[in-house]
């Protein structure tokens, strides 16, 4: 069957929306993200928009009015001193901090395109991303300035701006944090000599202020179809590709986030932003959605170790937390959290990776509030589906497609699967990206006739609730039987002595592939953790072929910057381990 004729299927999940979720997605009130920032900062001018908290509790804040003024100054700097024109790319490589919103919003106000970049990238990854995107300006955290000497000459970057973690803190705390970085932790390398101009963010803002231009002229023509972000993704296979997210994509997804949660959100909310803003989840959910309703973002520059979040949770009335499974699990294993869970909490939002049921259940008991699990991809800005914040929520489910979204499950021949059967989840809606930057072939493989092929295998239950069975590529094929790693991991996570687990396939002479489990011991639970006990537990709950044949007990698992367990790294290890053996 061909997809070209796929008519929009019915949306059976609308019956599950309840009273608080609109069936149709309301129009966005804004034409672009710059328009949104402009209006929002005016509306909430005097309120605190962002507070950044470092591990010792030192902090700095920016009001909506200051964010407005500073981002306009940065836009002026980009336009007048860097020669940035409409649609030009500006790479931003910053951890969470007060500099991030100033710079990101400045880029939008200049009518330019934001290229979010992971601060921990290696020089070769940076070179790839900056040349692929054609970035003209780079804003980078001063902790990583030592990489510039190798990177900049090989890219088209013409201006480098440095920002620190304690940027825009009050003077003395800023001095102390910088002093600690320099002398104590030695994380402030000297800035290498470069051919291109290098300035600090403060200087850039001064230059921008001296221009005293009205920035609205630069973004007035920016509309929903213009490119807002190049969001790089796809580390699992080949090189990273830039997902082209337009202003309309992000604005629509913001509307979708609010459609699902607005009934529980208020302008006095305080959201903990421990996930990095350069990742699409925190970008759309925390930076844009909570910002738009006038809430306050509590930014944590680095949530690892989890201890780093302690002062942020202790000192501010946190009402929402966005996180991933490992973050929630990590928090609950901290004594300061379990003994004194945040008292103002309304709910937590989980995404990025499957939320284990045991984690969600423990969280509900410990904090007395739910974790609502959502699902999304970089390519969909990211939110696709979300659990309603009511009794209708289903544990272990990624919820129902958000308003304005179509979803279908298809088999390998692109035909819809019978009801209740697993199939690849494909989605369509205003949040789906325009394509991959300069990669029409890749785009064609992923987006066909407006449908985004997620590569995730899901089943649809009654009421339109979706359950991810697994990642298409992560399936372990044991003697022709599909084993979904998530299912085995979920089973392993129920063993009290297990802190976390990852499951992948290994080559096996008899069954083609066999299940291998990597398990991390929970140091807080006394008692032995033996391979025999793990196997015995799995035998009790899983069919024979799903029981791990090989078990590796580890001190830790490889994780992505947002804390996703990286099965691909484990697969790479296995590849090396079995090289030449099978």
């Amino acid at each position, binding site marked *: 069957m061909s997809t070209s004729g796929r008519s929009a299927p019915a949306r059976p999940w609308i019956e599950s929306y309840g009273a608080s979720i609109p069936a149709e997605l309301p129009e966005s009130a804004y034409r672009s993200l710059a328009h949104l920032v402009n209006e929002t900062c005016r509306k909430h001018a005097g309120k605190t928009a962002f507070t950044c908290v470092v591990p010792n509790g030192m902090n700095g804040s920016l009001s909506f009015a200051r964010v407005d003024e500073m981002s306009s100054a940065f836009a002026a700097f980009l336009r007048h001193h860097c020669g940035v024109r409409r649609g030009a790319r500006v790479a931003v490589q910053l951890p969470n901090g007060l500099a991030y919103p100033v710079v990101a919003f400045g880029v939008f106000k200049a009518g330019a395109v934001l290229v979010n970049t992971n601060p921990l990238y290696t020089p070769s990854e940076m070179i790839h991303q900056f040349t692929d995107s054609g970035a003209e300006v780079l804003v980078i955290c001063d902790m990583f300035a030592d990489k510039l000497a190798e990177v900049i000459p090989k890219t088209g970057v013409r201006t480098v701006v440095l920002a620190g973690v304690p940027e825009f803190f009050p003077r003395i705390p800023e001095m102390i944090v910088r002093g600690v970085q320099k002398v104590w932790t030695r994380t402030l390398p000297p800035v290498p000599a470069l051919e291109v101009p290098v300035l600090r963010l403060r200087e850039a803002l001064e230059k921008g202020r001296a221009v005293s231009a009205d920035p609205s002229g630069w973004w007035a023509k920016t509309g929903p179809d213009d490119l807002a972000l190049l969001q790089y993704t796809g580390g699992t296979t080949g090189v990273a590709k830039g997902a082209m997210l337009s202003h309309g994509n992000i604005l629509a997804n913001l509307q979708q986030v609010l459609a699902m949660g607005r009934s529980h959100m208020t302008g006095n909310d305080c959201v903990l932003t421990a996930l990095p803003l350069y990742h699409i989840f925190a970008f759309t959910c925390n930076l844009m959605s909570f910002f738009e309703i006038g809430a306050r973002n509590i930014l944590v520059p680095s949530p690892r170790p989890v201890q780093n979040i302690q002062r942020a949770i202790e*000192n501010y009335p946190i009402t929402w937390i966005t996180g991933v499974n490992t973050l929630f699990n990590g928090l609950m294993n901290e004594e*300061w959290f379990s*003994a004194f869970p945040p008292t103002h909490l309304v709910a937590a939002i989980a995404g990025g990776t499957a939320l284990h049921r045991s984690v969600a259940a423990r969280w509900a008991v410990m904090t007395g509030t739910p974790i609502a699990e959502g699902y999304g991809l970089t390519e969909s800005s990211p939110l696709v589906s979300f659990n309603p914040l009511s009794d209708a929520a289903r544990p272990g489910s990624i919820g129902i497609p958000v308003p304005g979204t179509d979803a279908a499950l298809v088999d390998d021949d692109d035909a819809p699967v019978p009801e209740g059967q697993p199939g690849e989840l494909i989605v369509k809606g205003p949040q789906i990206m325009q394509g991959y930057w300069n990669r029409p072939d890749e785009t064609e493989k992923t987006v066909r006739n407006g449908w985004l092929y997620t590569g995730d295998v899901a089943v649809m239950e009654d009421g339109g609730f979706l359950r991810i069975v697994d990642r298409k590529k992560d399936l372990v094929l044991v003697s022709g039987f599909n084993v979904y790693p998530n299912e085995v991991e979920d089973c392993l996570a129920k063993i009290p002595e297990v802190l976390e687990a990852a499951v992948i396939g290994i080559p096996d002479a008899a069954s083609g592939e066999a299940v291998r489990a990597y398990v991390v011991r929970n140091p807080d639970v006394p008692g032995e953790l033996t391979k025999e006990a793990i196997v015995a537990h799995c035998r009790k709950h899983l069919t024979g072929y799903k029981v791990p044949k090989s078990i590796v007990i580890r001190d830790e698992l490889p994780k992505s910057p947002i804390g996703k367990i990286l099965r691909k790294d484990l697969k790479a290890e296995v590849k090396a381990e079995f090289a030449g053996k099978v």
Partner: protein
Amino acid sequence: MLTELETTLLGVMMMIIMLGMGASMTPRDFLIAFRKPRGILIGLLSQFAVMPFLGYALAVGLGLPPPLVVGLILIACMPGGTTSNIFAYFSKGVLALSIMMTVVSTVVAVVMVPLLLAFYGGMAGVTGDYAIPPANVAQVLVVLLVPTILGMILRKVSPNVGATIELIGSFTGVVVILFLIASWVPRNYPLLLATGLDIYFATIGIGLMGMLFGYWVARGLGQDTNRARTISLETGIQNGPLAVLVITLSFTGAQQQEVLLIPILYALFIVLTSTAITLWYRRNATREELARDAAKVRPA
């Protein structure tokens, strides 16, 4: 002897140090620490059971005269010094445990130090002129608890102010030692030259033996090597400036001069010995870390 001005200055600096110590944590940290008090209790044991006994044994064993016995026992009975936290950090120890032990031992000191002083002072036969009135010690400690609590509250209310004060407190800790050395040594260098080897042995030995016993008490009670190293440093590093303050408030004139000898020598030497021990501990900690990493990459 220290002038009135110097004594006042010392008092003010101690207040700042204690304010800084309090500001290194919040009231909640304090509550959390007591949910799993094992490490802290072991620390208290080595701080208030092992150390004073070592001080007493050294004083009697070396047959020191009464003013030096008082000085040595006083040093041995003191709570942990705030500089121990810096050493704990550089030795890759458990910083939170170090901070907590310093704070808790300072609080417990209000009761324990007067008792221990009276007990070991009596055992060593210190009487009359050289006995430190227990009320004096308790008073000084209670007065110092006020800035400690104030510091904790400040940290909670304004983390920016709290962390700044913490930093100032740490610097003051170093300044006080320099101040004591600078104001005392030049006036007393003939005394230093006349001081016997046994006294140097006592002042240097009390710190080193404290660290040695602290480590093995902790190990014996099931603490891992890293925590044991932290407890070790905490046990050996005493609050020397506090001992000096107590002495200046209890004695005058030549008597004060005599009693001050050991605490001041202690404050001077503990910086050197702790630095050496810290470097050694740091090497051990690094070696253990590498061994753990190596165990991780070995395939199953």
